[in-house]
């Protein structure tokens, strides 16, 4: 165990398998990362890359009868994966809280918003109902719901999408958790509302000194909010490092592909460079590097040998790619040049 007192979560070799009648779905394979206080970890990947499943596994929200989970998730010196369900229940929702994508589906339509938040308070405390209600109003005000005392008596349908997501964040924060897991928290929202919610999460993180795991498919959201980034593909980590480095010098061909295929608001590109093909089935993922069938740079070992997630040179961040470091530097430089040429052409 590391001595770093700010370390909150240490995930090692997290692996999730779902046995189905068609075969075993290899949803998450050997995912390792850490989260410290004050850190926002951005987890990016396309649909089916395992980003949500790994978080559900950490939260203990996967049915253990249906999912085989291996690895270690260390939180406060304890492995969450081996905790008995009732002990895990004391941690989940209290020390680790989660905000989901769809604020429309997460609130019960027939209960008042304030009462639903009060219920979350009562789930982990012995205080009375009055205290819980007060706490709910206090938290609603805290996340920027104007006139919180009156709005706490509203039903969810009286709230807009952005307000519902604020209410969900308020609910997640009632017990001062140390980790907030936000799974696509802004995907269902409009851009101007998205900006407000991202700002709120950032404020909350600073104020309560917590760690945030932000799961998203939007690289722009990650670039603006995350300190560190984990790029996932087909259930595996392709690249993991500080956000500034990943965006300035991405090392994995998949990360290059993602960045190059993304339209940018800053200029009109002469053409987008898509990643050809589509993501693999997790029932029988490709051997070797899972990205090799779509990779333009694949060579001899890619199809057979799985590249480990290691830093190619000490000053670089870890990636899972067989390409020699010099080649990555050379291709990375070419990408940068191509971007500038594209700018001129536009």
């Amino acid at each position, binding site marked *: 165990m590391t001595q770093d007192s700010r370390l909150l979560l240490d995930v090692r070799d997290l692996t999730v398998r779902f046995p189905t009648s068609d075969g075993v779905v290899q949803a998450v394979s050997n995912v390792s990362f850490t989260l410290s206080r004050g850190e926002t970890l951005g987890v990016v990947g396309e649909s089916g890359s395992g980003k949500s499943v790994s978080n559900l596994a950490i939260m203990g929200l996967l049915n253990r009868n249906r999912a085989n989970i291996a690895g270690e998730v260390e939180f406060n010196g304890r492995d969450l994966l081996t905790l008995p369900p009732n002990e895990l229940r004391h941690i989940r929702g209290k020390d680790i809280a989660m905000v989901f994508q769809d604020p429309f589906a997460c609130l019960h339509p027939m209960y008042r918003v304030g009462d639903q938040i009060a219920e979350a308070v009562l789930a982990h405390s012995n205080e009375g109902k009055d205290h819980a209600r007060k706490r709910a109003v206090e938290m609603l005000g805290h996340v920027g719901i104007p006139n919180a005392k009156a709005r706490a008596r509203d039903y969810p349908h009286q709230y807009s999408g952005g307000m519902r997501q604020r209410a969900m964040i308020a609910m997640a924060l009632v017990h001062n958790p140390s980790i907030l897991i936000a799974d696509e928290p802004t995907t269902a929202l409009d851009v*101007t509302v998205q900006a407000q919610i991202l700002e709120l999460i950032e404020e909350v993180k600073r104020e309560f000194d917590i760690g945030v795991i932000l799961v998203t498919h939007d690289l722009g959201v990650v670039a*603006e909010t995350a300190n560190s980034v984990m790029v996932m593909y087909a259930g595996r980590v392709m690249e993991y490092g500080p956000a*500034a480095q990943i*965006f300035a010098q991405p090392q994995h061909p998949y990360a290059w592909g993602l960045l190059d295929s993304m339209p940018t608001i800053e200029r009109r*590109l002469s053409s987008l460079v*898509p990643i050809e093909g589509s993501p693999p089935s997790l029932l029988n993922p490709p051997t070797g590097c899972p990205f090799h069938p779509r990779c333009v740079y694949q060579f001899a070992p890619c199809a057979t040998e799985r590249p480990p997630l290691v830093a190619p040179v000490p000053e670089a961040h870890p990636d899972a790619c067989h390409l020699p470091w010099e080649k990555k530097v050379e291709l990375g430089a070419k990408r940068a040049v191509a971007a500038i040429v594209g700018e001129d052409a536009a």
Partner: protein
Amino acid sequence: MSTPNGAPTEPAVADAEFGSADNLVELEHLTKRFQVRQGVFARGKSEVHAVEDVSLTVRRGETLGIVGESGCGKSTTARLILRLLDPTSGAIRFEGQDISRLSQRQLRPLRREMQMIFQDPYSSLNPRKTVGQIVGSPFVIHGERRAKTRVQELLETVGLSPEHYNRYPHEFSGGQRQRIGVARALALSPKLIICDEPVSALDVSIQAQVLNLLRNLQRDFNLTYVFISHDLSVIRQIADRIAVMYLGHVVELGESESIYESPKHPYTAALLSAVPRATTGHRERIMLTGDVPSPIAPPPACIFHTRCPRFHQGHCDVDAPPLRELEPGHAAACHYPLEKWPMTDDEIRQAEGALRADKPSLEGATQEA
């Protein structure tokens, strides 16, 4: 045809070259209101102002992007152009012909000229029909023979294989399904294709494939697109001209480059600054407070004044700004358009060189503080 209450009667500016042979579609003072019932036992009646007094043109061979947040009326506008909805008032002209009052029967020959690509490639394809039947159905409806070879050619055109003819939609990925939708839209060689959020349900790597396909098809078949999206990065990539909508109104209209490089309307500026970017570096962000007002009771005068950082009491809430041309090919509906871009928060608030109307009409009490 009655003009809706309070709609300006002056001719639409900026896009006013109505009647030009270059225009494929012309919308003039187009308005759509939906009746809704409210209250106990649905006794109260009110109207949703979905599209209010929209005037614009779509030129042949161009891509007109319509952007805005949910509920701004962009999809309703698209459905009105296709006459999938009947307008409350105003005119829709397709190739110079007013189609706003045609019956469904009279519209049928025109239907082959305009097609639509939908957002969700999962729900827009019938799961019980083969790809051949789906792409071939326009031929059947319009009584054309020899569909099979044409369908196979179409499948090749959109990057699928002719052997996919007998497969079912569930055998395809999201991106491939969207290609099937594109092939179906292309079947009758239409002049106009309305793309309603065609890449929003796709992952980025696939999104780029479909955007490139749409662009190549436009070049090869001389297509005109109306491209609806909430994603400003996608719109920048594909659109030649852009209409920015807010609460049913077009608030800014112009050449794409001009709008992205120097937005004039504070709402457009707020939208642009809210988009997260993958490039590092700090920039000013205009934070809008509150939520979009209800389209059942839209704010009086300028519809954006309740959230606008440049709001001037006694002007913006009294006088509705018309959509007027501020630069050649770039119009905005604002009394205090932005002087430059980017701007800091303070600069936005200090609107000076205001384009004040001739008469600062202050009569009539302000309704919303």
